[in-house]
């Protein structure tokens, strides 16, 4: 009897699992499928390709338009992530470990920014960056990315830092460490997994952005892939851009899939730990 119920319960859960997995994967599989279709079969309306081809991938990697955008995407996201994580780590350490006036204010400000409508910054940043010569440059995108990634980084990291037992730092101090040594030799090795998780989350955030990328760039110099996709609209190089767009879309989806596959546990813990404490 008991065995039977658990089997049935397992089946029921299994069915629900399948629904979730199908729901989550169909749009991704669809765009991947399109990217492998030949131009002739592209409009056959079938979910799976009848003829497979890699031509679409060859095409996009042959054009400067895509390669340049890919370089921009990777470079900008990596630099923004690195800076945001370093600044975020410093701030989160201070917030979770030290007592100083103004701490609440900082937490409040970063919460406000997390809720901030990014579009409200588009017009002033557009104008300010044009005046400063930052418009259509890497730093012009990196700056807003850091800003909006910082609240995420600070929240996730301080949640991680708060899990590190307080006593360890005290113990290190009693053992003769300075504040700095206590951080470098005791806290940092324990914090590394949290920092790594945060870096993934921040990278996904930067990699994902479209609004800033489309408003603060105007040429291939600093256009990222999500924006470049909009300009694939089949002018000279491509007859029908659908296949190329899909291939490019798949290329920028690959890193996300890899992150999710390898670091599922970390990403979930990062997102949920930051969330519980708000």
């Amino acid at each position, binding site marked *: 009897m008991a065995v039977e119920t658990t089997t049935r319960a397992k089946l029921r859960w299994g069915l629900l699992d399948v629904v979730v997995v199908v729901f989550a994967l169909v749009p991704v599989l669809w765009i991947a499928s399109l990217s492998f279709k030949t131009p002739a079969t592209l*409009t056959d309306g079938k979910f799976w390709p009848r003829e497979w081809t890699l031509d679409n991938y060859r095409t996009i990697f042959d054009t400067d338009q895509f390669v340049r955008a890919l370089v921009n995407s990777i470079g900008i996201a990596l630099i923004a992530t690195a800076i945001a994580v370093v600044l975020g780590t410093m701030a989160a350490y201070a917030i979770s470990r030290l007592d100083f006036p103004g701490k609440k204010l900082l937490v409040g400000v970063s919460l406000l920014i997390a809720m901030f409508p990014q579009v*409200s910054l588009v017009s002033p940043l557009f104008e300010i960056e044009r005046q400063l010569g930052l418009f259509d440059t890497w730093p012009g995108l990196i700056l807003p990315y850091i800003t909006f990634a910082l609240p995420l980084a600070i929240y996730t990291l301080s949640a991680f830092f708060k899990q590190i037992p307080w006593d360890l730092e005290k113990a290190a101090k009693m053992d003769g460490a300075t504040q700095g040594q206590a951080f470098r030799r005791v806290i940092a090795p324990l914090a590394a997994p949290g920092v790594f998780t945060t870096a993934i989350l921040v990278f996904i955030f930067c990699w994902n952005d479209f609004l800033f990328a489309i408003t603060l760039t105007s040429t291939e110099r600093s256009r990222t892939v999500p924006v470049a996709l909009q300009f694939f609209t089949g002018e000279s190089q491509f007859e029908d851009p659908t296949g190329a767009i899909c291939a490019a879309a798949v290329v920028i989806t690959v890193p996300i899939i890899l*992150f999710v596959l390898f670091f*599922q546990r970390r990403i979930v813990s990062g*997102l949920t730990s930051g969330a519980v404490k708000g």
Partner: protein
Amino acid sequence: MSVNATPAGAQAAAEAEAEQPGGRHAAVPEQRSRRGSRAPLSDNKRAERRLGWLLCAPAALVMVLVTAYPILYSVWLSLQRFDLRFPDEREFVGLENYVTVLTNDFWWTAFGVTALITVVTVAVELVLGMGLALIMHRTLVGRGIVRTAALIPYGIVTVVAAFSWRYAWTPGTGYLANLFDGSAPLTERASSLAIIMLAEIWKTTPFMALLLMAGLALVPEDLLKAASTDGATAWQRFTKVMLPVMKPAILVALLFRTLDAFRVFDNIFVLTNGGNETSSVSMLAYNNLIRGLNLGIGSTMSVLIFITVAIIAFVFVKLFGTAAPGSDDGERR
């Protein structure tokens, strides 16, 4: 062993006790605070403060410089006639831009569209997200697979997902368009809006679910067992035990998703490009700014969106009081 106890402390305590019989603590409250505030800071304390400021300064500086200053600048811009195509006509016009925007039908249509998308998607996501959270949290089989699959919509680039939906509904190309006899759903307002909402829900339900799962994790297993032995059904366990414990997590998830949904831009841009009156406020602001190059009107819309979001956030915080994020309780939890 030189035992040299000094009973002064005990005496002082006994005296203090005698002064206020029945008092549980020896010290007088007013006396404490008065002396406490004047206690000089030791080197240790001062060093800690300095380090705290030093570590936070860069992050704070970047955040303030890139948000506070531009938003003020945006207010300044919104008070001017400032069209980049006619830079010579730039002048201070007071609130004229606000009058223009607030009496404009496009603005109110976009506002309505945004509000509709926000309300519908957040409501649907709350239900679906709760279901997904329960599955991810409690499933007996394949927990890792479900969680991994659910993270894909969260992680994927919104624009990529939007293209996938767009091609799915394009007549001839798409597997979904054929379901409707080759009509073009993305050329009609109602169906376009439905598809936009579908794309939004697909993309952000997992995030909602993760936030809710964090709340689910706070429900003690013993509490559920106790409820079952007390005779509660599965539904009663959910509504009477889980939901109350999860309330703070639900409110946080709602707040974040509401504000996020209000910013909807990417999906509309790719799916309809704002055609057939499907523009959101963000889309409209973008069009005025980048396509119309009208900085004055664009900034006015920016400021209005900012104010709306501030009001939503304020209402949430007011309604939910200490359960809202940023309050002391929420922060220490």
